[in-house]
């Protein structure tokens, strides 16, 4: 299962934790992070995705970034998460158009073997459906969309991501849980914003997307997985790598 992760990335601790969890599951070969896109027109937001990709040993990939709309400002959480990180995303040309990128990556998946998790505004998804060649791709490839703000005309099953999804959960991440990495964005963010708001819905959505809607998410599961160090990757090497 390939998962496209779309968020106003860097605005909430929930998204940082959700992506940590998603990448952990990727490292355990339970899923693949197919693409990461941000609705936030902010290079720091795109750069933070790059930090994750490198930190978790993910495949190098273009990062989708919306270049217009709201959310340009760098909040204190994002600023903390990217502080001191090595980031090669320096300008818009280091990023990709989110809608074209999502369409392209979906084409590489078998029918019904991809999902999209979108925790932010639905702008990138609306743009995706606006691409003339995207609709049949979305229809055939995307098994389910978990979204906080799904377009009304989305052609495959949609599960609304709401704060209620995390109701009853009390998982509380600690900076030291992420000490396996020298500069884990969550640890940096927590150090700066120890009382950052948390509703856990995005983490629940990640587990539902990857393990199925029936999967029961508990605090113990989150405690075990969210901050875990990724498994070492066995990757194929090519001549020239």
């Amino acid at each position, binding site marked *: 299962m390939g998962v496209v992760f779309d968020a106003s990335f860097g605005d909430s601790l929930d998204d940082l934790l959700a992506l940590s969890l998603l990448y952990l599951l990727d490292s355990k070969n339970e899923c693949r992070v197919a693409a990461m896109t941000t609705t936030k027109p902010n290079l720091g937001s795109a750069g933070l995705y790059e930090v994750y990709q490198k930190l978790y040993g993910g495949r190098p990939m273009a990062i989708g970034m919306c270049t217009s709309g709201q959310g340009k400002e760098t909040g204190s959480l994002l600023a903390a998460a990217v502080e001191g990180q090595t980031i090669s995303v320096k300008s818009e*040309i280091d990023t990709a158009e989110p809608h*074209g990128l999502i369409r392209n990556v979906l084409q590489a998946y078998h029918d019904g073997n991809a999902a999209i998790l979108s925790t932010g505004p639905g702008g990138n998804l609306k743009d995706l459906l606006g691409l*003339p*060649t995207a609709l049949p791709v979305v229809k055939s490839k995307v098994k389910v969309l978990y979204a906080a703000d799904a377009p009304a005309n989305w052609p495959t099953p949609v599960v609304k991501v709401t704060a209620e999804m995390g109701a009853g959960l009390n998982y509380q991440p600690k900076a030291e849980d992420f000490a396996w990495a020298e500069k884990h964005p969550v640890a940096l963010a927590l150090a700066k914003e120890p009382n950052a708001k948390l509703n856990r819905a995005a983490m629940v959505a990640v587990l539902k997307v990857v393990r199925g809607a029936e999967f029961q998410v508990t605090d113990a599961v989150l405690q075990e997985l969210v901050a875990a160090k990724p498994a070492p990757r066995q990757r194929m090497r*090519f*001549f020239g790598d």
Partner: protein
Amino acid sequence: MMTRKALSRRTMLRGAGAAIALPAMDAMAPALRASQLPGPKPVRMAFVYVPNGIDMRNWTPAADGPLTAELPRILKPLEPFKKDITILSNLTHNGGRALLDGAGDHGRCCGGYLSGVQPRKTFVDIKAGISMDQIVANQIGSKTRFASLELGLEDARQAGDCDSGYSCAYTNNLAWRSETQPLPPILDPRVLFERLFGTGAELSPEARAQRAKYRRSILDFVMGDTRKLEADLGPTDRRKLDEYLSSIRSIEQQLERAEKDNSIINPGMDKPYGVPADFAEHFKLMTNMITVAFQADLSRVVTFLVTHEGTSRPYREIGIADGHHPLTHHMNKPELIEKVTQINTYHAQQFAGWVEKLKAAKEGDSNVLENSMIVYGAGLSDGNRHTHEDLPTLIAGNGGGYIKSGRRITARRETPMSNLFLTMMDRMGVQVDHFGDATGRLAGLDLA
């Protein structure tokens, strides 16, 4: 007041078996629409495709924006024309990637290069997409004698499996008239010459040889018309006509030399009758004829498959006996990379020769290059790893004052190559809402 009847843009010099179109001349001005002489000229478009990727380390300039620094090694032959070219970075063909179809990057990257689709993996019931040159040719082709011209330098089969299950039709053709009909390139300069300046009758190789035995210049056959025309022309037009006919004569002489050499040199393989044994000579002949075709407005759309995708052609003329394709899988061995770079540079050198010709072909107060968009590039970037992003692409010419050249423009990552094609179609006067996998027009190419 004396008035002289304007010369028709369609005037031809005719003779037995010959019909030579004329370049734009002052005497035609009154007969031409306001959109033509002496104002804007017709915009021409060509695609020059080189196979097996390019060594990007020696292709990509260090910085974006104006090309002020010395060009990288492969592009060095284009140094004198730095102000006339635009280097584009980050253009991508997603359809060239495996997606779910496994191996076959060479088949996919060429088969879908001008259509922006992923070709069907098959060598039986081929299917790609109508290529953008043919969309343009369909719409504006009626304005010229040939809606489009498809050329190449390397003989290649059209059927069978050429790359991991992909038909040779994909690796060996650039232009596609429909999803299922590729347009094989003309390889033989004599065939192209006869097509451009003959009356359309196909000659067998034997008949051609017979004719060659008694050959006179094609100009001899149209001498009567030429003299009549000259009498009606002013001194500027007379000089222009003389230069133009001289260039045709020069092509004829090149052809004759090539055919003579061919009878002496045994290339060790079957070659069409008029194909020169020498690569550079062949390239020059074909591009000289395209220049004349552009000058005379015989066609505005050309595709030129230099050699076919996956070719293992050696380049002994520059001391490289290894095949091109095997070399590109160089395993990072510096001595093999060096040879790839030399081949890439050799190709660019030939291309630079053509750019020089186009620039020298005057057209009113501008030249043919200024009024053209000649795309030079490949369907793979790194030929070793078969990558389909950041495809090596440059445009020579200004598209009739549209492209602000002398720059490197870097698009956002993953920008579809189809965005460039959509923009070029606009410039050719062909409006389509959507093409291939385009996400929009290519930003930053125009003068704005």
